[in-house]
């Protein structure tokens, strides 16, 4: 299988990550489209010893940063935000449960969100995340820790409103 075929095979995973990162389907697919276009252009720069998946995520990450998508204003934590994120009834498949998760993700700063999604959703190792994002592993771990603490506080709905300091 050629490198190009392998890239095509990874499109669903790129879409999943982009969707979780940006929320909207159109915006996410725009990002995937730009990523594929650049990846096909830069394929000669890819060295086989670098995992193709990691490389594609790094291409996507750079585009996300370049295009200022990562800096796009995220919603401010509203008054009573903790009530909006109060636990929903029902199992994990519950629609409300998903909406709470998506809203909570919107509140995460992009650098934390990227690390969390690459680890938890895309199941990259910490080393791979560090390479994809171009940051030290120690930074990966601290961002992961902060992302999880923030999300847990948001989703637990334990009555503690997340402070801006926590979500930034």
């Amino acid at each position, binding site marked *: 299988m050629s490198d190009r*075929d392998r890239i095509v095979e990874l499109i*669903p*995973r790129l*879409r999943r990550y982009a969707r979780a990162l940006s929320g909207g389907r159109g915006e996410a697919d725009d990002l995937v489209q730009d990523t594929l276009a650049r990846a096909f252009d830069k394929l000669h720069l890819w060295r086989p010893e670098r995992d193709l998946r990691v490389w594609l995520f790094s291409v996507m990450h750079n585009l996300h940063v370049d295009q200022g998508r990562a800096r796009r204003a995220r919603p401010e934590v509203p008054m009573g935000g903790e009530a909006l994120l109060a636990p929903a009834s029902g199992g*994990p498949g519950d629609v409300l449960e998903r909406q709470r*998760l998506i809203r909570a993700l919107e509140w995460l700063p992009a650098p934390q969100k990227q690390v969390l999604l690459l680890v*938890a*959703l895309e199941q990259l190792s910490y080393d791979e995340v560090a390479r994809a994002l171009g940051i030290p592993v120690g930074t990966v771990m601290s961002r992961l820790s902060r992302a999880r603490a923030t999300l*847990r506080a948001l989703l637990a709905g334990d009555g503690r409103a997340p402070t801006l300091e926590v979500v930034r």
Partner: protein
Amino acid sequence: MTSGDESRPVTEEELHAHADGLLPDGRRAAVEQYLAAHPEEAARVEGWMRITASLHDTFDEVLDEPVPARLSGLRPPSRLWPRLAAAAALLLAGLAGWWLRGALPGGDAYREAMLPHRAAVAHAVYSPEVRHPVEVGSDQEAHLVAWLSKRLGTTLRVPRLGPLGYDLLGGRLLPGDRGPVAQFMYADPAGKRLTLYVARAESGETGTAFRFSQEGAVGVFYWVDRSMGYALSAELPRAELLRVADAVYAQIEKVPG
């Protein structure tokens, strides 16, 4: 706790690694013992794992969605080199055809075959283009027509093929053996593209009937009308292409001149 590696204190990083299934085997027992002894920490780690499960529950369905055409359309075949290769293959096939018919370049058969052949090559090169199929888009149609008319030295008219299901994407200027050539591109809602190639006809040719030429995968209907050569190319069944060609011909013919 035993000795050596397993007796080290458990770190925050190891708790994450445990939640992510990335903990080395040698440390699993130590971390599990630690969590059993610290219920608050165990609840924290369990919370992280629930978030992971929710992420998959929410976003894994994306993996099963069909990939939109605009993404799968970026597949390698749409890249320049394979397209140029396809165009080169068409060119060689065409030359071989003339050779076999005993017509050397410069003869009548050569000139006759030139129009559909050039049109098919231009179609093969530009129609797979995802991002820049045209130089000027249909949103600037007036400008497009004025520009190409000026370059070709005649009043061009862009046929409307909307009723047949093909919308104008735009057009571009191409080099031809008798000066500039215009290419207009259309697409149906599924993204199927057809191109109309308009070039100045060979001197002396003022009008011909419809002719059809199969150039590889590309079918071409072509004709000459008032000293202009027209060629409509697409990878479509011949009957469908003829239906569109009829419409193009009827609209161009209506132009006074």
